């Protein structure tokens, strides 16, 4: 798109414009950066220090430990490195004139003081891929907690969940698109009784909350044995995605020039041939937009998968949510799991952003 010259001259944006934007962007990115960094850190480190400490910063580094002889009475003011103070004052930390800090190690009985210095610390290079290995695999894993104790747990088999998510998402995206394309063609170009009424109902269904369907459909699924199957969830996602898909594709297919279709009919083509040979190829941009939309929505869906798949055939969102519920403090596992769950949609999204935006614009009526 060519920018108007007038607007380009406005692009000499003020310092404040860029400043505000940069601040907002940093706020937007820091949360993601936090879990990205954390997912590569050793489990013990995560429990003891904040993730931002992997970056160069000034820190109090222990330089020596002083064990006081038994002769010193700790209940009265005493002297360390030429500084006299009470035990409580030492415990709260005392800064010497040269910048060194004296603090106490543990309780009174340790009789140990720690001398530390405020120094620059470079990048923390103690990073690992173990968290990813642990969370993707389904075997027993062990790691160290804050106290350095080894903890053993069963893995989360996120790799399996990833495959399940693919099995849900790919057909769950293609099936409704195919069905919707047929329907959109039917509504746009074929005549049949009740066409107007039925399409109006579809428009009304655009924002119906899917909660309304969960209880009745689950009842049907239990009767049909569809609960927990891929087929069941494909159909559910098709059902919930179809109104928007049909609406979007109807709008698109409706704009295909009438003459094009009529000349094809005169050549003796059947509706089916026209649809597969003419309409489908022409609708590729609209199909692609909706495909990305539906793909992201399915990959990130939690509610529908939770209700219709449950623990059986669990998808990544369910696996991650379970991890949060069961192991709410295991940040090394949660952060790497969250990243595994984000990687595919991020790639699809950043790669195909333009199509996504187009679909979003056309479908901004959906709830």
């Amino acid at each position, binding site marked *: 798109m060519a920018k108007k010259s007038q*607007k380009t001259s406005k692009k000499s*944006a003020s310092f404040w414009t860029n400043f505000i*934007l940069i601040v*907002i962007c940093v706020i*937007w990115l820091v949360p*993601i950066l936090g879990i990205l960094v954390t997912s590569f850190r050793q489990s013990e480190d995560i*429990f003891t*220090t*904040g993730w*931002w400490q992997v970056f160069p910063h000034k820190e109090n580094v222990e330089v020596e430990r002083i064990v006081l002889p038994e002769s010193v009475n700790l209940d009265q003011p005493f002297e360390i490195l030429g500084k006299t103070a009470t035990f409580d004052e030492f*415990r709260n930390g005392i800064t010497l004139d040269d910048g060194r800090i004296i603090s106490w190690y543990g309780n009174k009985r340790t009789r140990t003081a720690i001398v530390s210095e405020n120094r620059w610390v470079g990048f923390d290079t103690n990073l690992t891929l173990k968290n990813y290995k642990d969370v993707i695999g389904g075997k027993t894993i062990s790691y160290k907690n804050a106290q350095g104790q080894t903890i053993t747990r069963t893995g989360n088999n996120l790799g399996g969940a990833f*495959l399940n998510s*693919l099995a849900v998402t790919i*057909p769950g995206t293609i*099936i409704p698109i195919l*069905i919707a394309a*047929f*329907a959109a*063609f039917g509504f746009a170009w*074929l005549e049949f009784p*009740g066409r107007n009424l039925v399409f*109006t*109902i579809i428009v*009304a*269904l655009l924002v119906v*909350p*899917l*909660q309304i*369907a*969960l*209880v*009745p*459909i689950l009842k*049907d699924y239990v009767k049909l044995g569809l609960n927990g*199957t891929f*087929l069941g969830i494909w*159909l559910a996602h098709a059902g*919930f995605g*179809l109104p928007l898909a049909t609406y979007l594709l109807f709008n698109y297919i409706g704009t295909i020039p009438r003459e094009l279709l*009529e000349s094809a009919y*005169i050549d003796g083509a059947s509706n*089916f041939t026209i649809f597969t040979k003419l309409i489908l190829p022409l609708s590729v941009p609209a199909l692609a937009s909706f495909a990305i939309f539906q793909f*992201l929505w399915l990959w990130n869906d*939690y509610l529908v998968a939770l*209700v219709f798949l449950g623990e059986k055939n669990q998808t990544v*969102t369910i696996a*991650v949510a379970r991890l*949060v519920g069961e192991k709410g403090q295991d940040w090394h596992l949660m*952060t790497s799991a*969250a990243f595994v*769950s*984000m990687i595919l*949609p*991020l790639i699809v*999204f*950043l790669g195909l952003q333009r199509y996504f*935006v187009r679909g979003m614009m056309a479908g*901004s*009526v959906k*709830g």
Partner: protein
Amino acid sequence: MTVAQLNDPSPNDRGFIGKFVQWFSTTLGQIIVSILVPAGLFLVLWQGYTFLQKANAPQIVQVIIAIVWGVGGVALLYVVTNWLVMKLPKKMSKVLQPFVFVGPAVAIMGWYLAIPVVRSLVASFKNYLGTEWIGLANYKFAFTDPRMLETFRNNLLWLIFGTAFSVGLGLLIATLADRSRAEVVYKSIIFTPMAISFVGAGVIWKFIYTYKGTGVGIQEIGLLNAIVIAFGGTPQPWLNLPPWNNFFLIVIMIWLQTGYAMVILSSAIKGVPAELLEAARIDGANEIKAFFSVVVPYIQGTLLTVTTTIVIFSLKTFDIVRVMTGGNNGTNVIANEFYLQSFTYTDAGKASAIAIVLLLLVTPVIINNVRQFNKSRRGF
């Protein structure tokens, strides 16, 4: 339509077949055929599918088979149905063919969305098992129970603050980015959270809000508490502090939804004619005044659409609350209460009543959508 109209009814259409055709031409017959034939094929595919699922193949093989089966099955369904319909006499196939095209979509939407509205409505007047009529008792719960009142209050907070900040920030960023050379970069960054699941976002923000407690030598690993400490405050268990914890959850929604508002508003702002803005500037309006007197009125239609979409989103909010707090500590929302009633307390009656409440809340939008559609489609 042109080809079929040229063909007169063929002679063998009379007699028995003629009656048959007549019967089939009734709408009822059309619907029965267009549903029965795909349903039969569907059944066959389904049997094959369950058979395969029982086979003990490695997961990746199962997944690939599932994908091929699912996608191929649906395509086959259309090809077979169309082939069947084309085999019929011309007149009949002409009448039936539209149903081959729209039938499956209508059937699925009917089963999954339209009929459930009625079924939920019926269930909302029955007891928790669906065995007895109990009148309006479930609605009395839905509108007066303290649990529900809490969810209403929280959803209202989500609606007001979530929407206001998402749209406001989106508009601010869209406007500012429009004047910057690095527009694409800024917009991509703000937009990125849209690709992240609410569950993933839950983990991200839970980590920011995490709290370790007070004590000697304990270092907070949550960013928010670290910032609070850096400014001399005391760390807090943010997610356990009603009613403020609601706002900490709403922040997540803002983080996720601002990108959406920004992208749509950005393209609307680009549509504002430069001459209009110029004229306002010549009249002596400063940038801020020009923005409110020219840009905002020009994009108000888009502004309304974006606001409506985010309002609906905030009403249906579920995943964030479910993952972050489970609705505890005064953070419950309508959709989470629905989930609890249907799957934890297994009270189908109350759950249905709550679902109907959600539906009622979006009804104005539904009516508006239908009206807009009918207006734009005069002569459809």
